[in-house]
């Protein structure tokens, strides 16, 4: 502590000198409302684009949108058109807005019966006439139907015998909105085509998003580089955005580079992470209608730079200086908010991040500005004069579940909320910033409860400084997380691989990626993708279900011998490739008879697909591209040395894998764009067959071997009882090679690892020590075991992982048993840290909406009655522990707030924890090892020491008096000998008992001091009180518990009537 104190002080002195001169300037700028001046030093540097020198302009595209113009001045065309706006960065870090002109959207329909191309102009006229009747197209300048032509191609769905090319009509329209409108008319048969009979038309590719259409047409991928030839660029006179440069160009002049080779690099991207603090009223979660925004902290970085560009906190009211950050104070909230808008405009970030900014910070700011009638505030995007609008959105995805959230028009700024990313990509116990930082960064953070914030705000400049430090930390952590998890790199690579804009990855489900790939490939092959009726927004009706993957019944037990694991690499993608399964190879049942038997393959589920010699499936081609690209990326990754390139390549190979696996899901998604259960059913049927074949092949080719378990894409093989790891690995490799040969390419059975030892509990639940080489094990691998489940308390996870460690790594069964007994004994004696017993559940809907009685809901009601103010609000995770209650009281009524339990010394229901939480998972693990003796873990000597705590609250406690008992043997001491610490029998041992109790006090004092120091360190100050109430932090609970223990121990100690110094707290 001492060694670090002096540099910090120096820092502060230096900072304050700079601060004095700066303060003056800031004050002047604030006075004149010249907010932009404040932040000019953070603006992007002005590098010329070099187009004057004839150099082509290369831009990394980050986001795109489009606008509708009534007349296109660039094209000198006076009809309505959509102009695509591309927001990007140059290699030198200049921001450029590219407006792309001239692209018109199109879709396809099948030709009318007996169609004659001579009639094209007539048909076009008919369609235009009908379209003009729609009220919604009245405003459109110029013709709606821009072009009508014959397109020769095939439908993606179904292979038709002899594979004839079919004529379609390609309809090009003026504006994106017209597509839907015209397609609906045609689908209804609501267009009169003169001499052709009125009929309902099938539409193709009408549901493709305009921007995706544009990207496919120009062969542009997400986050990819685009090149603008210098002689084709036009620079507008008037600046319409906050970006440094604006360029106009025709879409056919755009050169789009697929993300390969040199185009894998990235440009300097500006990322702004921010966090706001609000001064709530006591006991109510801040509401924008009433509560001020008091601070906004900003942390601005640029990729490729090690130092942040800006660390700034805007505060309401004075604030003491903070080392390493800039503080700008304002006198009114309106000024604060306006200054932030200027900050955004000047710094011009490409990406906005933070923690829960989408559902808290941004809506709060916008609503607050609305309440304050700040008309200048809601302009957070990159275009001048375009208002930021907020909308409620609801994303239903089979993979991510249903999420309600908000969306914003932020033209050109991509919102990457780290909370959303974490919820999407990681399964965690808690998503609070505290616990997430601990999980990924290994840091605890001070948590100031929102009820204390107002108090700090109304204090003095030092308390506000404290708040500002806290606020800055909250702005800083999301960036740290983003960096550590490489979220941005990985998501950018995913955008590149799947070919969709970065923002879509977060705002849409998995399917859009496959849609993009399918359209791109189909477009290249002349295949049209039919629009499925009701697809996408099917109302509740579930598609037909089909049989899923197979599981070979596990032979449970503890295997103290190497178990070889044979895996099918990328099982479903390789099945699709091997058997040419695709929409475009799928033969209708009625058409099968027209095919020669050698031309098609029948899947085990009975559906037929033509062989690749007849037509190669589009899905196979997509998968081949993805997997070969992954192979290349992996190879490059192995060769690459630059850490940044390595992270890009790793992100890329992951993105390729994710995309390949998404293809199978796409065919089976009943609410997807193009569901085809025959395809997904065929794939799983092949999978099941392969697992069964593998099992019988292994068992026949390797006598005395046994397949003990198999699931979806892997089988576990026990070759023999007595076998070394080396032998087992050799056999595994041999088996994989032999069996691979019996499957068509590219299906490959791989041997990757052995488990030794291996504990097979039941299906999808096992644990083992994983070996890929013979020298050392790689890791302990657990599946479906309580170490990873979230609905348990930490104690369970800790005990289980420790037990597995002892069983599998140390191979010490007795040690594991002893450990369990010790833990149970500690639990019963109330020696277990309460933070380990906390379970938390989210209050996901209003308490009244819950049907069943759930612990956290009952507790919520209790807390609300106790103090409506500090009670948790909707969406909060409520932590609770289970306490003792009446004999017949249901468990949910016994849930209690852990802090309340600590403060009032309420007795925990340790029996409940033992019986309902620990017992089952432990039994599952130990039963295969020690058989029926498992019950001995939970009964016996170690369960006979218990502690009954005396609560400080509750019914009878107000009236009771504690009578004195002997400190040595606990027998009551008669009234006459009151105040004696010991009974007359224990008196003889007074010295040793005294020593023991003194030792207790000392130990608790030491622990308390250590924990307190820990909290001071985390808080970053030793001169202030620790305010933190971070309920995710184990230190916090331990600090409270030790405080209590210390009080009790000192009380005992004082009974010896030897005067000790008063306690230190």
């Amino acid at each position, binding site marked *: 502590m001492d060694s670090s104190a002096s540099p910090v002080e120096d820092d502060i002195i230096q900072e304050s000198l700079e601060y004095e001169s700066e303060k003056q300037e800031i004050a002047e700028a604030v006075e004149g409302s010249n907010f932009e001046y404040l932040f000019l030093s953070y603006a992007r540097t002005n590098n010329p684009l070099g187009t004057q020198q004839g150099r082509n302009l290369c831009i990394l595209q980050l986001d795109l949108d489009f606008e509708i113009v009534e007349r296109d001045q660039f094209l000198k065309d006076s009809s309505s058109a959509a102009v695509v706006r591309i927001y990007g960065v140059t290699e030198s870090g200049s921001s450029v807005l590219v407006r792309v002109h001239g692209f018109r959207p199109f879709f396809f329909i099948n030709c009318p019966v007996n169609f004659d191309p001579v009639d094209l102009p007539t048909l076009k006229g008919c369609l235009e006439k009908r379209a003009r009747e729609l009220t919604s197209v009245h405003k459109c300048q110029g013709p709606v139907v821009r072009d009508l032509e014959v397109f020769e191609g095939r439908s993606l769905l179904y292979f038709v015998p002899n594979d004839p090319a079919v004529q379609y009509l390609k309809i090009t329209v003026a504006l994106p909105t017209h597509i839907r409108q015209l397609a609906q008319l045609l689908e209804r048969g609501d267009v009169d085509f003169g001499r052709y009979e009125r009929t309902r038309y099938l539409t193709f590719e009408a549901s493709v998003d305009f921007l995706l259409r544009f990207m496919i047409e120009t062969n542009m991928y997400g986050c990819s580089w685009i090149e603008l030839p210098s002689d084709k660029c036009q620079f507008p006179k008037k600046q319409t955005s906050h970006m440094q440069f604006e360029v106009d160009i025709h879409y056919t002049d755009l050169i789009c580079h697929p993300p390969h080779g040199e185009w894998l690099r990235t440009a300097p991207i500006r990322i702004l992470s921010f966090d706001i603090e609000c001064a709530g009223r006591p006991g109510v979660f801040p509401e924008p209608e009433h509560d001020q925004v008091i601070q906004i902290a900003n942390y601005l970085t640029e990729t490729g730079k090690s130092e942040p560009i800006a660390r700034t906190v805007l505060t309401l009211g004075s604030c003491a200086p903070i080392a390493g950050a800039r503080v700008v104070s304002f006198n009114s909230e309106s000024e604060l908010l306006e200054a932030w808008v200027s900050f955004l405009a000047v710094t011009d970030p490409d990406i906005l991040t933070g923690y829960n900014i989408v559902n808290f910070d941004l809506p709060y700011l916008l609503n607050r500005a609305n309440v304050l009638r700040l008309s200048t505030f809601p302009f957070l995007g990159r275009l001048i004069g375009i208002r930021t609008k907020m909308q409620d959105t609801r994303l239903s995805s089979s993979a991510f579940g249903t999420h309600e959230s908000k969306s914003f028009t932020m033209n050109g700024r991509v919102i990457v909320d780290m909370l959303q990313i974490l919820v999407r990509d990681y399964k965690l116990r808690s998503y609070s910033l505290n616990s997430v930082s601990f999980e990924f960064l290994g840091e605890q953070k001070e948590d100031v409860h929102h009820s204390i914030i107002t108090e700090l705000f109304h204090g003095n400049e030092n308390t506000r400084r404290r708040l500002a430090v806290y606020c800055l930390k909250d702005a800083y952590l999301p960036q740290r997380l983003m960096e550590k998890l490489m979220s941005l790199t990985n998501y950018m690579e995913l955008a590149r691989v799947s070919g969709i804009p970065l923002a879509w990855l977060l705002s849409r489900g998995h399917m859009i990626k496959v849609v993009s790939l399918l359209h791109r490939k189909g477009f290249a092959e002349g295949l049209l993708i039919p629009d499925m009726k009701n697809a996408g927004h099917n109302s509740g009706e579930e598609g037909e279900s089909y049989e899923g993957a197979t599981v070979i019944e596990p032979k449970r037990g503890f295997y103290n011998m190497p178990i070889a694991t044979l895996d099918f690499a990328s099982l479903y993608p390789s099945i699709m490739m091997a058997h040419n399964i695709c929409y475009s190879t799928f033969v209708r049942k009625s058409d099968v008879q027209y095919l020669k038997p050698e031309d098609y393959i029948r899947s085990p589920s009975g559906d037929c697909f033509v062989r690749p010699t007849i037509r190669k499936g589009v899905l196979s081609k997509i998968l081949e591209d993805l997997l070969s690209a992954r192979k290349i990326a992996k190879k490059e990754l192995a060769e690459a040395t630059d850490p940044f390139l390595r992270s890009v390549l790793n992100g890329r190979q992951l993105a390729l894998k994710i995309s390949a696996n998404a293809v199978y899901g796409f065919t089976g998604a009943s609410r997807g764009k193009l569901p085809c259960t025959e395809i997904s059913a065929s794939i799983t049927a092949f999978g099941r067959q392969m697992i069964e074949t593998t099992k019988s092949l292994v068992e026949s080719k390797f006598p005395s071997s046994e397949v003990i378990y198999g699931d979806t894409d892997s089988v576990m093989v026990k070759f023999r009882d007595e076998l070394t790891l080396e032998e087992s690995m050799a056999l595994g490799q041999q088996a994989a090679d032999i069996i691979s040969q019996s499957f068509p390419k590219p299906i490959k059975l791989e041997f990757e690892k052995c488990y030794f030892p291996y504990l097979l509990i039941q299906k999808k639940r096992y644990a083992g020590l994983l070996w890929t080489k013979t020298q050392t094990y790689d890791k302990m691998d657990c599946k479906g075991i309580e170490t990873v489940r979230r609905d348990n308390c930490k104690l369970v996870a800790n005990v289980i992982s420790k037990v597995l460690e002892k069983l599998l790594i140390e191979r010490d069964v007795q040690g594991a048993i002893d450990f369990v007994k010790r833990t149970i004994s500690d639990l019963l004696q109330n020696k277990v840290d309460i933070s380990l017993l906390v379970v938390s559940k989210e209050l996901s809907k209003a308490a009244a909406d819950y049907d069943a009685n759930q612990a956290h809901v009952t507790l919520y009601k209790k807390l609300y009655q106790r103090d409506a103010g500090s009670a948790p609000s909707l969406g909060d995770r409520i932590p609770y522990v289970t306490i003792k209650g009446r004999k017949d009281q249901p468990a949910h009524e016994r849930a209690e707030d852990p802090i309340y339990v600590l403060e009032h010394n309420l007795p925990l*229901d340790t029996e409940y924890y033992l019986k309902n939480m620990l017992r089952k998972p432990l039994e599952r693990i130990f039963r295969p090892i020690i058989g029926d003796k498992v019950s001995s873990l939970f009964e016996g000597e170690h369960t006979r020491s218990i502690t009954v705590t005396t609560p400080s609250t509750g019914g009878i406690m107000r009236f009771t008096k504690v*009578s004195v008992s002997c400190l040595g043997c606990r027998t009551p001491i008669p009234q006459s000998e009151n105040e004696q610490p010991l009974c007359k029998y224990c008196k003889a041992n007074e010295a040793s008992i005294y020593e023991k109790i003194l030792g207790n006090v000392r130990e608790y004092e030491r622990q308390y001091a250590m924990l307190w120091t820990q909290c001071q360190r985390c808080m970053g100050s030793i001169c202030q009180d620790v305010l933190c109430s971070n309920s995710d932090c184990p230190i916090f609970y331990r600090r409270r518990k030790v405080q209590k223990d210390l009080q009790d121990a000192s009380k005992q100690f004082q009974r010896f009537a030897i005067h000790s110094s008063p306690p230190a707290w």
Partner: protein
Amino acid sequence: MVSKEEQNLATTFQFEARLTQASLIKKILEAIKDLVTDANFDCSAEGLSLQAMDSSHVSLVSMVLHAQGFEMFRCQRAVSLGINLASLTKILKCAGNDDSITLRADDKGDKAEFVFESQTQDRLSEFELKLMDIDSEHLGIPDTKYSAVVEMPSSEYRRICSDLGVMGDTVRISVSKESVKFQVDGDIGKGSVCLHPSSVVDKPTEVVKISLEEPVDMIFSIRYLNFFAKAAPLSDTVTLSLSKDFPLQVEFKFGEQMGYLRYYLAPKID
């Protein structure tokens, strides 16, 4: 150094006591095992006592068996026997109601011995119970002068509690000079039972007696009063003692000089 005296003590039992009727202990156990799961039995020269809060800390149980109530009682030094009541119940199931029961404990404090002897002395059974180490504080309710003391037959008490228990969760007990009234107000309706002090004393066990300093009117949880009613077999009469803002005391006496079982229940705030 171990003194001679201590050596002698170690070889014999620190504590030994015999009760002629095992049924008394059995009934006591029945009466408290729903409230308390583990408790320390404190043995001292004065007798055997137990004090424990129920697990939801709303009520308190206090039991005393005076030394003179035992057929034989010897206590060399005070000891606390930590007993799991469920385990003790299992052992006591093996004793006949009319058996005599002998309880012994040595000073190691890790086990207690139970010896059951039939009246005819032709059957002797011995059991050993492993003791627990229960770390808890000794709690008690200070003695007080109650404003109202009602004595009534135990069976009457039990009946009132079970009758009113089906109607609601809480009972209002009002005591005046003329009567004691139990009122319940529940979801399905309300009800009350009123007892008047008996004018004629035919059988002493059916008497209702009220001694009053000042009238009281308090609310209690019926659920707990029902738990207490399990003690009815221990005594023909029960005494309810009430004072404003003070716990209700429900006392069952085990005959003259033997001892008592008392329950205390915190009042509900209106």
